[in-house]
């Protein structure tokens, strides 16, 4: 007789001014995870656009046991949003993803399947392999992304192809272990998470994901971002 272990997946979605996207994301998650036990934990940082009102409407449709609204008073950063969300997690697996629809919930089954097949502690989505991809980046953006990736691979030997990706599935205990030792902010935070996990010897698997960047047009990748990235790399080189 096979011992059936019941798995529950807690999806943490930090939001700030995502009143439309959060509704779309919730719909798509429910669409693609029909036979899965999961909950969505929305950590909203006091959005002024009424995101929390929309979440309450979604709770009426899908149930307050499936959609947990755990807000904070103001914008406090991504790392602390995950830590805050973690306190309310009742599953044994945690998924982190962005709320702006650059991460499509249709990949959630492939994350889950990969983890069940390999027993990995972390499954991370990668945009840079066959089967994955990015849409919405011009040549310059692709160049900086590729250059940054080659530099990071050469210096850090991280063992994953997409270091700054934030679409990941963690075993709950593993996420708790790593997040306590991470100090960076912004996207360097995501890099530090996966590099520390790699250094600690956790089993990491990758699945290809596609990334539709709808924000890129409005946000620029300027000199200060590049400096921040290089400083982050140097920090990770020395401290991990």
């Amino acid at each position, binding site marked *: 007789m096979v011992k059936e272990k019941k798995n529950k997946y807690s999806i943490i979605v930090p939001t700030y001014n995502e009143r439309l996207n959060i*509704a779309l994301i919730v719909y798509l998650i429910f669409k693609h995870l029909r036979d899965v036990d999961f909950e969505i934990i929305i950590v909203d940082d006091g959005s002024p656009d009424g995101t929390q009102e929309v979440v309450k409407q979604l709770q009426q449709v899908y149930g307050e046991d499936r959609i947990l609204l755990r807000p904070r008073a103001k914008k406090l950063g991504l790392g602390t949003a995950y830590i805050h969300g973690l306190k309310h997690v009742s599953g044994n697996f945690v998924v982190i993803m962005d709320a702006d629809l650059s991460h499509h919930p249709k990949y959630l089954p492939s994350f889950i399947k990969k983890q069940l097949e390999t027993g990995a502690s972390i499954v991370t989505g990668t945009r*840079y392999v066959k089967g994955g991809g990015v849409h919405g980046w011009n040549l310059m953006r692709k160049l900086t992304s590729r250059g940054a990736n080659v530099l990071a691979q050469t210096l850090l030997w991280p063992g994953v192809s997409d270091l700054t990706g934030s679409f990941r599935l963690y075993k709950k205990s593993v996420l708790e272990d790593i997040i306590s030792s991470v100090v960076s902010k912004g996207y360097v935070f995501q890099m530090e998470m996966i590099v520390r996990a790699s250094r600690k010897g956790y089993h990491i698997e990758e699945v290809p994901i596609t990334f539709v960047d709808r924000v890129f047009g409005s946000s620029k990748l300027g000199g200060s971002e590049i400096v921040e990235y290089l400083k982050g790399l140097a920090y990770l080189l*020395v401290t991990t």
Partner: protein
Amino acid sequence: MKHIVKIMVLLVAISACWIGLLQTSIILRSHTWLLPIYFIISLGCYGLLMVGVGLMNFPTCPQEALLLHQDIDEAKEFLKRRGVDVGSD
């Protein structure tokens, strides 16, 4: 062992080999002196090659934007009927 220590050990090992080559003159002395420069230049070229190759083979997914649009329309329809406010922001 911290990663930086690993890299340092590697560099020390390579330097030791280089010094060994200088002492024992297996290769012509003048060539040996230039080896570190060759090494750094090759590393740089390799890096540029990797960037170029990666750029040429950068995976794109233009069809995903269309699929996403369809998903958005489907979601809006469903949610509107159930009383969720999906007016554009």
